[in-house]
């Protein structure tokens, strides 16, 4: 039987691209907001927003791809609770990949700063300038991000656990190898 054990190439490329961008945007966000006002701070804020909107676009693409393509089956020996946990965590990761950039975009608008993607493409302000709403959205953005951090730790931990502790070939699912090769 020729079982598929790897996600399709577009899914793999999108996964790692989004992972890379999140690993850049997260520490940037933590670092930049404590800085005193300076041109560098303004630049970092813009870079952070540009990365975030890029994640939003790629996450939407991923979601579309995921809904139209069947992922490789999980290893046969995996416990039912692990399958359920996997489905829930993946679902939440998708949700956060959309919700976090969206909350940042809305926060930016509420704080009175339009998001202009790469300094070129202005995104519409979906909410007007509103100080309280801006503060609230900042809290939401932060809470969602630390939830994401926890889920990413779980996600990476589970993948490594399956591969190295349960000794099931697992990491190749998101690897660069050819389809079906283990």
């Amino acid at each position, binding site marked *: 039987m020729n079982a598929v054990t790897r996600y399709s190439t577009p899914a793999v490329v999108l996964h790692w691209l989004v992972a890379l961008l999140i690993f850049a945007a997260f520490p940037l966000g933590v670092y930049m907001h404590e800085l005193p006002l300076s041109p560098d701070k303004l630049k970092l804020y*813009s870079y952070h927003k540009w990365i975030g909107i890029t994640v939003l676009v790629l996450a939407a693409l991923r979601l579309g791809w995921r809904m139209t393509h069947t992922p490789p089956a999980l290893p046969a020996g995996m416990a039912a609770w692990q399958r359920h946990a996997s489905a829930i965590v993946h679902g939440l990761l998708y949700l956060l990949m959309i919700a976090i950039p969206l909350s940042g975009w809305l926060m930016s608008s509420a704080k009175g*700063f339009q998001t*202009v993607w790469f300094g070129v493409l202005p995104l519409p302000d979906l909410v007007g300038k509103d100080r309280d709403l801006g503060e609230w959205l900042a809290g939401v953005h932060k809470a969602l991000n630390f939830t994401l951090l926890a889920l990413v730790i779980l996600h990476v931990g589970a993948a490594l656990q399956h591969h190295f502790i349960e000794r099931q070939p697992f990491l190749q699912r998101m690897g660069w190898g050819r389809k079906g090769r283990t």
Partner: protein
Amino acid sequence: MKAMILTLLAVLATPAAHAVEYRTVLPKQSTIHFEFRQMGVPVKGGFKRFSTDMAFDPARPEAAHAKIEIDLASIDAGSSEADDESAGKLWFDRGAYPKAIFVARQVRALGNNRYEMRGTLTLKGRSREMVVPVTYTPGKNAASFDGGFVLKRLDFGIGEGMWADVATVANEVRVTFRIAASGN
């Protein structure tokens, strides 16, 4: 009797008899806003407190004069962080220069209720000549004067040192105003 009629005719014939001279500025209906770009993002701001001393008679625009004094402490620079920053030495240096002052020296009619106002803008101890187009809109009880111009902040040393990089904060600042005044 004849003299009286002549006087009456003379008064009626003088355009000034019907013209209104706008001298009393209505602060609540007057605004000064500005807009600049920061990392390509348009940022809006304004000044809440300013005083205007003016006289404008549409029949004699060349005799018009205006002086606007803006309290820089009343700034809205887009965020409270930017409001605080704007007071510093690199920006307005508000401790030493608390006001921006515009004095109109010459007003020229362009026709169709449009005028060209030439004057001097003084900011942070530096003065620059400005040419400002103004549209006059007569109303029932008051008239409004709308105008706008683009200034280069670096001409006035606004945003020096690390802020002089115009790729982050653009040099051009678009200023728009509406001054409402009544003739009483």
